[in-house]
């Protein structure tokens, strides 16, 4: 009766794929905090309370200006949020934070308090990849967590396949390269070879603080300090590691599959 039992159990579980993006997004954990908002205009002269508490030195204060916080180096530990006596750095609870340009992750100046969310690919690429994107993943010094949360997107809850996005085994079959890790020098050649094996046109997606900036390993001679040192990056997805929802949002945004370009209604943290 084993087969019938299995089928019965499976039917009982029902459809477990989430409603997002047609329905509401799943809630981030309440202690996650989401993307940061940095209002450097609130920084009084001479204040540098937040600088020494950041484990990755993601916050700098150029002379005569307010602070600049690089979300591409950020571990989202919120130590700076606790340290700031002026409310210049706050958590928004927003899971959306993928960008197309590296500088769009640097927050602080007026008009640049929050990330400038990724635009969709332009006409031709969007037409090619918008409904069918095949990705090859390479971990180049990755720590296993980014890889795990990319794998999660393939599980029944997220079901990446319903968007026409699929991870493939061969670079020959891939439209895009998803890179995790700070690009260890020992993986640099393999990463380049994988890239060279992919047919044009092709894109690169950097996932996680290490892939964007070197993260906690920035400055180590054993790593290249991020994917952009080796390949042209089309999408940066911050996080340590990024929540699966942040990754999915970035991918859909890149393909022009999301319409909420405004920053006015971040989903509330629960």
């Amino acid at each position, binding site marked *: 009766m084993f087969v019938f039992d299995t089928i019965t159990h499976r039917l009982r579980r029902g459809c477990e794929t989430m409603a997002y993006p047609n329905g509401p997004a799943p809630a981030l954990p309440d202690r996650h905090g989401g993307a940061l908002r940095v209002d450097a205009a609130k920084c009084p002269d001479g204040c540098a309370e937040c600088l020494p508490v950041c484990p990755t030195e993601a916050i700098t204060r150029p002379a005569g200006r307010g602070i600049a916080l690089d979300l591409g180096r950020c571990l989202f530990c919120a130590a700076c949020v606790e340290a700031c006596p002026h409310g210049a750095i706050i958590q928004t609870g927003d899971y959306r934070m993928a960008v197309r340009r590296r500088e769009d992750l640097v927050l602080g100046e007026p008009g640049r308090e929050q990330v400038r969310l990724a635009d969709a690919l332009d006409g031709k690429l969007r037409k090619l990849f918008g409904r069918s994107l095949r990705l090859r993943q390479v*971990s*180049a*010094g990755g720590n296993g967590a980014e890889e795990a949360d990319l794998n999660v997107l393939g599980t029944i809850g997220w079901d990446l396949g319903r968007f026409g996005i699929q991870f493939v085994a061969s670079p020959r079959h891939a439209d895009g390269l998803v890179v995790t890790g700070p690009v260890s020098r020992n993986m640099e050649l393999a990463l380049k070879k994988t890239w060279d094996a992919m047919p044009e046109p092709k894109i690169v997606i950097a996932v996680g603080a290490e892939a964007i900036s070197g993260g906690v390993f920035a400055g180590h001679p054993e790593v290249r300090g991020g994917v952009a040192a080796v390949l042209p990056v089309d999408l940066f997805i911050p996080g*340590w590691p990024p929540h699966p929802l942040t990754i999915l949002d970035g991918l859909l945004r890149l393909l022009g599959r999301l319409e909420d370009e405004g920053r006015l209604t971040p989903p509330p943290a629960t």
Partner: protein
Amino acid sequence: MSTASPFLLLANATSLPWAEVPEWPVAELVRHTAAELGRGARLCAWFGVPEAGATRLVAVIAFDADNTLAVARSAPVAGRYPALTALQPQAHLFEREVWEQSGLIPEGHPWLKPVRKTAGAAPAAVDFFRVDGGEIHEVAVGPVHAGIIEPGHFRFQCAGEEVLHLEIALGYQHRGVERALSGGPHRATMSQMEVVAGDTTIGHATAHASVLEALAGAEPPLRAQWLRAVALELERLANHTGDLGALSNDVAFLPTASACGKIRGDFLNLTALLCGNRFGRGLVQPGGCRLDAEPDRLARLRERLTAALAEVEQASAWMWDAASVRSRFENIGTIHARQAAELGLVGPAARACGLVRDVRYDHPAGWHRLAQAPVAVWPSGDVFARARVRWLEVQRSGQLLTEQLAAQPEGEIRAELPPAAPDTLAVALVEGWRGEICHVALTDAAGRFRRYKIVDPSFHNWIGLALALRGQAISDFPVCNKSFNLSYCGFDL
């Protein structure tokens, strides 16, 4: 142990003055270490400490039955010394590592080659063990694999479908973790410890925090020890559940694979409930935990834990009930207990060979002095046993968690840590979900790290995978690999 013992005894998560560590001529250290390993001790760490142009070797061994660790060191040595590996195979990678890092040659080592270093373009650009013969062919796989997985190179020597020999070349993930620790702890150190192996954040962070606490001569508050133990079991549940799903996927039994993929996420989300991060980043810090769990949060945790445990129970039952799964797991990738002991395997891979070794039980520290789960053991040494041990551990971790969540101690969650003692050696072992995590720190005169050694369980266990493939069909490699599920970055550091 008599006072004439060549080793100085210490308990897990404690420290002792470097000057008190017994010093032996190097050949004596090798002889004494081999003798103790021959009597059933295990090699936890073997590493070099640079000193005035030479190297001191340090041996940290574990007497599991006596619930104690022991340490000894050599006089400074340069050039060559008689290899420990020739007497005790479990030292093989440690001695290669020392040679790579210090140039010290272990004479009589059967396979002396780099561990992580790039020789030219990539770590694999070195000679491999080769089998010659007209019907022999060689299969090279990696570093980039077909999946979302870390990189490593596998070199198979095959006769038809049968694997005669597998050699595993790693090092691709090397990020310079240990080197960066000298002179530390630095500002980024705690964060780096959390990603030594990113799926073992709580395990490595707890080991590092314990080392710092031992050096400072301070214990974290009891409530912090309790919360660390809770988070450690959540980490184990998430990873074991993921592995059970991945194993059933590799034998094409998809109901369990798809259910466990989701339930694994449910366990990760329980860790995120505690600290906001699915992998436990930022929870553990030297001196305690950064965040506490208020009663309402714990009530939600208990409720969701109960639901997730019931789901994994059912999803696993489908798999164990399926004869097709059992027949694909049984007698595949078998390692015998004696081999596992000689190679020094740890964690579920060792327990699946019938070896009773679990740091939580043998060398309890922190909360595990007060609460323990029965050690999960299965005797057959094959893929079935490695899956079965994971399943037993899911049940027992779930049981332990359920009990301990109802027995929380009150009090502070963190305490200020005094400065680290100078010229002191501290050792901390933690039973991570893959097995024994070992951190050893030696401080200098200023109390900064003079040498810091990290041994991820994968460092002990990769050789187990290589051995498990002997005589197997090469098509069984994926399921064998998954049954170990070892860390590349934890090995490469």
